[in-house]
């Protein structure tokens, strides 16, 4: 009996004190910040839909555009997710669908639907640092980098876009798997959105910057609605999210072969 009382007491104490310790400003660790940033940036709501317009400018100043609709469903917060990316523009890609079952600690499953021949193709996992649809964004920028791939270090507090932000230095555990030596992320102290990330090459030179250009509160969720990647040597991609909605009630069945072959118009309008 005594043992049970003791356990109950400990649990009560835990309930009362632990949360205040966890969010206590002085005690928050770099790992906590990165975990919360991952949830805020990539797991908002239980699901979400958005239209994405990308403008890709290469070094020579040539401009290309991409229009996509993305559907996302979280199977578990901070864990497995489903993505459905429907191509609207340019015209020769219209109707193409790219679908990902994102896993943590394992390779993602990916499919591509080619409408011209009604073909569902399984796609081998790609280098996560390779370009997303020819833009300056990488696959990792779009669906999030595994938080356990880096060692995180809280450097200080900086002001970015008039917002107080945690400055975190992230050093990859496997340096050979990426093109950067480290990157510095600036995480909004208040809502944990990533406001800026600066990537340094193997020589320690800044070569790439990802910035949140506009943040709006949608359905009560702080959301990056405009972003930009710029390469120091020239070339940039801007991205704009419109019609952003959360908790629309996507079901897992959307992310199956049926809806690859027959895009769910209800969610793509």
């Amino acid at each position, binding site marked *: 009996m005594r043992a049970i009382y003791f356990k109950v007491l400990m649990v009560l104490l835990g309930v009362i004190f632990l949360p205040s310790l966890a969010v206590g400003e002085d005690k928050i660790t770099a790992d906590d910040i990165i975990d919360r940033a991952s949830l805020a940036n990539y797991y908002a709501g239980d699901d979400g839909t958005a239209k994405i317009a990308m403008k890709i400018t290469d070094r020579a100043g040539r401009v290309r555009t991409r229009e996509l609709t993305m559907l996302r469903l979280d199977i578990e917060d901070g864990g497995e997710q489903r993505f459905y990316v429907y191509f609207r523009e*340019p015209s020769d890609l219209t109707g193409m669908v790219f679908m990902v079952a994102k896993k943590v600690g394992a390779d993602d499953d990916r499919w591509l639907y080619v409408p011209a021949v009604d073909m569902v193709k*399984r796609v*081998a996992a790609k280098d996560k640092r390779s370009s997303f649809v020819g833009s300056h964004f990488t696959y990792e920028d779009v669906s999030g980098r595994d938080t356990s791939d880096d060692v995180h270090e809280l450097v200080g507090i900086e002001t970015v876009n008039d917002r107080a932000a945690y400055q975190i230095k992230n050093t990859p555990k496997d340096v050979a798997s990426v093109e950067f030596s480290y990157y510095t992320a600036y995480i909004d102290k208040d809502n944990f959105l990533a406001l800026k990330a600066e990537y340094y090459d193997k020589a320690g030179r800044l070569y790439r910057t990802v910035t949140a250009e506009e943040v709006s509160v949608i359905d009560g969720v702080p959301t990056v609605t405009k972003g930009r990647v710029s390469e120091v040597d020239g070339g940039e991609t801007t991205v704009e999210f419109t019609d952003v909605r959360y908790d629309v009630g996507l079901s897992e069945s959307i992310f199956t072969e049926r809806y690859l072959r027959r895009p769910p118009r209800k969610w793509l309008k």
Partner: protein
Amino acid sequence: MRLTQKIKVLIVVVVSLFFSLSIAEAGVSGGFIESAGSFKFGDDKAEKNDTNLLELRAQLRYRAYPEILEEYSGEAFIKFEVLADGYDESVSPIVREGWLSLSPVDFMDIKAGRQIVTWGTGDMLFVNDLFPKDYLSFFIGRDDEYLKLPIDGLKVSLFGEKLSTDIIVMPVFTPNNSLIGERLSIFDPISGRIAGEELDRFYEMPPKTPRNLVTAIRVYRSYRGVESALYFYDGFYGEPKGIIDPLRERFFYPRLRSYGASLRGALFGGIANIEGAYYDSRDDSDGSNASVENSSMRVLAGFERELPRNIGLGLQYMVDKLLDYGAYKRNLDPTAKARDEFRSLLTVRLTKLLMADTLRLSLFNFYSPTDSDDYLRISAAYDIDDNIKATLGGNFFTGKYDHTEFGQLEGNDNLYLRVRYSF
């Protein structure tokens, strides 16, 4: 009116009806204009043309969501093309797709009309996908998508918790666009030599009767990233693998019933697939008829993954085993060259994206160790901007013997250029 004509008229009527009714918002519409030309340079054994591709193609796509079918997620789609063919000196309208789809109930989708159907796990190799192909387009340098021909029919898909099923019914059989000696010189088994346009072959189509209805069924499941499927097909061989009258070059499409299965999933950081089928040649079940293709087995295994430097690698190995081989040998015309019991094929695909994905390089090689022949496809596709794409490519054939699939095409090597403006 013949059955095919009736079906065609029906498709046109139904689809136009829904287009006229649909005041609903039009969905995606678009299309392209493409010009394509090739230079044929091989040591041609029969044909003396220096090109086998010189054409201008316009495509228009129209998609509509008829209001009266909104409740059933109704959708109508037309893909219409006009092809001005400099080789044939002809201009022809082509309805490449024209269908109506809807979900009468939650667990069912129906798609009726002219449509393209693709299934199975092979990359440019087909085991259980017995829908019509156009190898002529494939060999002369048209876009990959033209390898598939549409079917006229009805597709009913049922979706269950675990298993899903596609049932496709084609009232009229559509054969492959077989090589007949035009554009590409081929081996003529009757005369035993390579022949071109002088070949006067006749391929007899199965009579259009209800008994000759073609059915294809697939039952599939995806579980923890592993996709499995069972297939059934009841119809005819896509190629005219039956001889009616050798002297008058008359051939027919023998009856085929096929049973197959496939598996596809992640393995060693890539994607592995295996697929097999048993082809029952129903007009020659015991292999005793030398004029009709014997039954056979086909097995395909493939693996695909990304190599360092973002190079995509795909490998496939496929084996065909002719069944009742003893009966085949016994009944063969003693003067004819006997096929091997086994035919194997090895393919390698390499792809590389460059310049922010605007330049796509591709190499696809088919090599048969048993037939000692080879087919190499290379291409470089460049997006000049979002609307204009140029593709430069080549098709190269070599073979030790004249009678093999790629060996017969030796001398038909070509380099092509396609420029497409999409809108």
